[in-house]
């Protein structure tokens, strides 16, 4: 029982990442009608925003090492520490959460440039060509990141404060053995907040209302004199920000490297399809569902019954759902159903 709860919890943070990427994919697909294979690359760029933030904060100056007296030794000390002392090292420690401040403007800009520079020319082209051009773009981004940051994963630790584990079990009067890393709890809360904000934004603001109307019937909204294209560009930028934030905050859980985007992309596409193309609640629900299923399947008890199930469970679920319920779990009738 403990093991089961533990595995479920482990699945939640991965599911949260899937849900955030899938949310952006669905937003883009629902509004622009574009299948964006470069969305995983956006997730990765977000993660590398955290890396850049860490690098900026730890920009160092060479100072004389006073502890060694018999020859001139130098050590590297970050500027922040020389300027602010103790406060400086705390700021450095909080590099990952602070990277949100960098991620939001950077990803917004990236999303805007990408939509205006490339995606807008592909609205009317077949889905196959959209997939192919964004796939090409994903390769380009991936290779640029690789040439800038190298091929090895770059460790980006969470702040000292959140490095331990939380005794979740004893909070709810369950076994003491159920513990969960603090950072994963933070990530879960963070992603739920982002998801909530997205839904609230679409539900309760005029902008969101127009976007939802545009998703339903683009032509009529255009006839009402609203420049829907402009709003859709902003939606694309927002989706890029969501993916970027998901990536930036995920770095303490998984050290970023250049192919993490592709790894997440394939699974996120499966998530979108399982949830139902164009359905936002579907994307979120399927993200968490598949994350948890993947964790549950990697339990030794399950693996003993069906060997290898942990490797293929997501794909297996996708196949079954696509065959049994073509439009996905929450899919709307008539949206890319065939």
């Amino acid at each position: 029982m403990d093991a089961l709860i533990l595995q479920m919890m482990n699945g939640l943070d991965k599911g949260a990442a899937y849900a955030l990427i899938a949310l952006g994919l669905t937003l883009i697909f629902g509004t622009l009608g574009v299948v964006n294979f470069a969305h995983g690359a956006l997730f990765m760029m977000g993660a590398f925003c955290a890396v850049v933030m860490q690098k900026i904060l730890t920009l160092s100056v060479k100072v004389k090492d006073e502890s060694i007296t018999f020859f001139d030794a130098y050590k590297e000390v970050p500027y922040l520490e020389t300027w602010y002392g103790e406060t400086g090292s705390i700021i450095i420690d909080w590099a990952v959460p602070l990277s949100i401040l960098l991620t939001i403007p950077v990803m917004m800009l990236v999303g805007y440039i990408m939509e205006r520079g490339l995606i807008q020319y592909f609205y009317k082209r077949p889905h196959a060509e959209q997939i192919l051009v964004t796939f090409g773009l994903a390769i380009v981004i991936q290779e640029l990141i690789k040439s800038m940051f190298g091929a090895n994963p770059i460790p980006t630790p969470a702040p000292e404060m959140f490095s331990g584990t939380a005794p979740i079990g004893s909070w709810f009067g369950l076994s003491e053995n159920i513990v969960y890393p603090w950072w994963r709890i933070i990530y879960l809360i963070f992603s739920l907040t982002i998801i909530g904000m997205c839904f609230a934004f679409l539900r309760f603001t005029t902008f969101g209302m127009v976007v939802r109307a545009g998703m339903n019937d683009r032509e009529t909204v255009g006839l009402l004199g609203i420049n829907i294209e402009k709003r859709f560009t902003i939606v694309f930028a927002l989706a890029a920000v969501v993916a970027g934030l998901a990536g930036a905050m995920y770095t303490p859980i998984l050290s970023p490297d250049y192919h993490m985007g592709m790894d997440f992309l394939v699974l996120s596409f499966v998530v979108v399809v399982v949830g139902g193309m164009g359905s936002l609640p579907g994307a979120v629900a399927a993200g968490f569902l598949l994350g948890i299923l993947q964790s549950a399947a990697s339990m030794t008890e399950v693996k003993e019954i069906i060997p290898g199930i942990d490797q293929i469970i997501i794909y297996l679920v996708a196949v079954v759902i696509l065959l049994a319920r073509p439009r996905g779990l929450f899919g709307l009738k008539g949206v890319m159903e065939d």
Partner: protein
Amino acid sequence: MKLISQPGPKTDFSMLLLFTIVVLTMPIWLAPIGAGYPDLVQKFAIYGLFATGFNILFGLTGYLSFGHAAFLGVGSYTAVWSFKLLGMNPVPAVLLAIVTSAIFALLIGYISLRRTGIYFSILTLAFAQMCYQLAYSVLTPITNGETGLRVLQSDPRILDGVITSQTEDGGPLITNFFGIDMTKTWETNIFGIDVQLNAGFYFCAFFLILGSYIAMRIFRSPFGMMLRGVKTNQNRMNYTGVNTRPYTLAAFVISGAYAGLAGALLCVTDPLAGAERMFWTASGEVVLMVILGGAGTLMGPMLGAGIIKYFENILSAFNKSTLEGMLGFLPENMLDGTISVLSLFVGEGWHLTLGLLFMVVVIFLPGGLVEGAKSILLKLTGGGSKKSASAQAAE
């Protein structure tokens, strides 16, 4: 009015003859550009075959499969198992690989083809990823996991003693076509060019020519027309009372068998099979080849495969010092900057070139290089306006 102009059997025959000559002389005319060595010409032939097969599905029916690498992998594993059990003769290996991968394609295609569009792509991707993950984990007894499957001296190889009187002396095992080693290379000098003629290449080239001939027959047949109908408008096909599923399934199985054959040929030249051949980026690569050359054209996929494999081998071998050698004529102050920019695109970074090339082709030349060349030719000869008008009328 003739809706689709098709070349007659005579032009087809001369085209095939020309193609055969071009393929067979590949080691000669590729030698001056540094691509004539056996390893690379074999890759041209094998991936050309893979892309040709993929084109039968994607080019004709428009179904974009993202999982064809699975069939390549299945073909490779079957071939190596045939080497292990039956002996080092490539013929049974190739035949068995075609059959096994066709069966796999039948199973996967039967399920995946119930959906179209992006759902079909995701389904094939899911199946291929399942094959890949299983090959790495549970199926290790069959696939030998990460190390890759290879032929050992202790394997039974029951036919080896019967057909050829090979006496093993512990050397590396080499695939052997009735006494001819597949790695055997004859070095000669033709017209002042040093040429390496490799037995393995000619084995692959035979299948490439055969495969292209079959593809050509399919393109010209009523079956091929049916597949084109599916691409143009599947709904209309269904409304006219045609059940298109058997046709698309047949196309899927045929292209799967081509992929299996290509996988087996990879093992004929180097008897080693690894699971990384089934990874989804490998499936993406074949899509790239077909798109680059031109989907739905006969020669395009082969051209695309050749270009990608050529650049992969040539560009990835470049490094800073070769660049310095090539750009020695530039003035000193420009040299460093140029080299640091260019070195992004070569060596390890050749994928960047590939990605850019790919984007450029999809954006500006959706029909691929062959279509692009055709339209340029039409413009140059001035006959474009008349023909395109009639083509528009036909549409």
